């Protein structure tokens, strides 16, 4: 059985009766068994997946109404709650946490008969760029297992790229969906802020993060978006997309579109192979009828500092609830005094999370808030104003997703600033709330390079159209695993 098909192809095959969901899911689980030892994408595998697929097959056979997913196997980043399922955020602090409710995106996918094959790995509490900060061991890049798969949604990208599932849901706070998508050669999408409900996504930096799908094709992303987007009464920050259909007219192309090349994102520090791929993508888009021109967004220089200041502050607050009193891991309270119990219990956070929380306590504190946190908020405001101006002139913006090629495990783990700067091309979309997508573009010396497109708020449909057009201009080799 061919596991290397897209979501839309899968649906077609099941509808046509060529394959059954149960067979496909069973084969998928076999695949996971055979490769995941080397890749470590999965934290837990759903043993009941085949039975669940079986139930859906019954519906298909009997002509009952079947949801749009037709039993397709999907992996879920382990910071998204599935009811009665362990949800650990790859942290020892939540080792034993079983979510008592479903995230909205999970409810929506369940309604559409998706099958969740398992929860996948991430950097602890989504703080990181390589999955090396997971408390349960890093994930490996299927293109070369000595290299990082990117992060924080590393497990998502690996599972899709290595055919361990058809699609995955990750979360993107500063590039955490787009970055691993680029490193593993999959499509990775971050929607307009508020397009997808965050209810059930365990918060890291709630004012800028979004759940995003990772898929094999851009059309698959549009398909997923149709299911999981929309106003949700459980999340006050969601916006009304009036049930937009992201799949229709996705072939519209880029004829006549004006695309801005963000100069700050192709500066020194960008790998020559990445630069050349970007130039190639630009000329391909021009061949399709778009016009490309350079534009400067000078706030990008400060975006990484602003991003880490803001996210550390929010993380420090969002993670305060983990005091192990109501849920967490086994550590009885008897005999302890309140403050010392909590401080001891929270030692189970990994070193990166601990560092971010110390920063998060520092930058908004009295005496420092003006210099750091408030300034960061102002940079965010100005960056948003500037990008809004840019979108008056341009329909889309383009840049490489990551300025460098995937790197080896352990290479950057001791250099925090070097690690920060891997994010420099992606945090802008989060800080400004704009939709952005990474399209797999080329493989350079066996390592994937993705190209990023951005659009104005609520222009997700036209963004997907442009991404699809770009995707169609290349034909990529198969992953060697």
């Amino acid at each position, binding site marked *: 059985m061919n596991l290397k098909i897209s979501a839309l192809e899968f649906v077609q095959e099941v509808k046509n009766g060529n394959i059954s969901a149960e067979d496909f899911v069973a084969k998928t689980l076999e695949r996971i068994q055979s490769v995941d030892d080397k890749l470590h994408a999965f934290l837990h595998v759903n043993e009941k997946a085949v039975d669940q697929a079986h139930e859906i097959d019954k519906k298909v056979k009997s002509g009952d109404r079947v949801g749009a997913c037709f039993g397709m196997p999907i992996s879920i980043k382990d910071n998204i709650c599935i009811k009665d399922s362990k949800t650990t955020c790859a942290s020892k602090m939540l080792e034993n946490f*079983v979510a*008592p409710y479903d995230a909205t995106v999970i409810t929506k996918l369940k309604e559409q008969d998706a099958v969740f094959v398992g929860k996948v790995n991430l950097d602890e509490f989504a703080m990181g760029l390589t999955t090396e900060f997971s408390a349960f061991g890093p994930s490996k890049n299927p293109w070369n297992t000595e290299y990082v798969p990117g992060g924080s949604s590393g497990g998502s990208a690996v599972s899709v790229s290595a055919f361990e599932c058809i699609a995955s849901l990750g979360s993107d706070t500063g590039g955490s969906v787009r970055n691993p998508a680029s490193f593993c050669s999959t499509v990775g999408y971050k929607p307009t*802020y*508020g397009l997808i409900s965050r209810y059930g996504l365990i918060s890291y930096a709630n004012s800028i993060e979004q759940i995003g799908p990772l898929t094999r094709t851009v059309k698959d992303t549009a398909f997923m978006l149709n299911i999981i987007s929309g106003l949700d*009464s459980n999340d*006050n920050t969601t916006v009304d997309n009036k049930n937009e259909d992201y799949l229709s007219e996705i072939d519209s192309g880029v004829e006549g579109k004006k695309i801005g090349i963000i100069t700050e994102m192709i500066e020194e520090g960008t790998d020559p192979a990445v630069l050349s791929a970007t130039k190639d993508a630009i000329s391909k888009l021009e061949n399709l009828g778009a016009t490309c021109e350079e534009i400067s967004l000078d*706030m990008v*220089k*400060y975006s990484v*500092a*602003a991003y*880490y*200041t803001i996210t550390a502050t929010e993380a*420090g607050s969002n993670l*305060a609830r983990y*005091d*192990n*009193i*109501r*849920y*967490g891991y086994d550590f*009885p*309270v*008897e005999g*302890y*005094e*309140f*403050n*010392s*119990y*909590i*401080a*001891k219990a*929270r*030692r189970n*956070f990994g070193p990166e999370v*601990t*560092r971010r*929380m*110390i*920063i*998060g*306590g*520092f*930058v908004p*504190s009295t005496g420092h808030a003006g*210099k*750091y946190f*408030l*300034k*960061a*908020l*102002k*940079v965010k*405001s*100005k960056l*948003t104003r500037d990008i809004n101006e840019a979108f008056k002139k341009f329909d889309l913006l383009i840049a490489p997703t990551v300025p460098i090629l995937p790197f080896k495990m352990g290479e950057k783990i001791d250099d*925090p*600033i070097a690690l*920060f700067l891997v994010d420099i091309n992606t945090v802008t979309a989060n800080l400004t709330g704009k939709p952005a997508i990474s399209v797999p573009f080329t493989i350079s010396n066996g390592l994937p390079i993705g190209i990023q497109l951005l659009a104005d708020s609520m222009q997700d449909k036209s963004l997907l159209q442009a991404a699809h057009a770009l995707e169609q201009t290349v034909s990529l080799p198969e992953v060697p695993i």
Partner: protein
Amino acid sequence: MVTEEEIERVSKLMKIDVDDHKEYVDKVHTMIDYFDILDSAGVESEEISMQEIPISNLREDKYIPFDEKLIKKLNNYKGTYVRAPKMS
């Protein structure tokens, strides 16, 4: 300038026991030093803005009990109260 005392004070504030403050000083110091770049952004006069919604979008005031006995699923549940460490 980030000192060991500062790290100690903040880690107390954030309620995290840090074994070796020195180990964190270096990395945190580097990170916070990097943030100094914000000083040259020239954004003093920017206004802070946020998403807005009209009052009519807010949740209706209705009592809807949660459909499960939630407390049974959480830690330290021994009958009725949640047990927390003693207060000093």
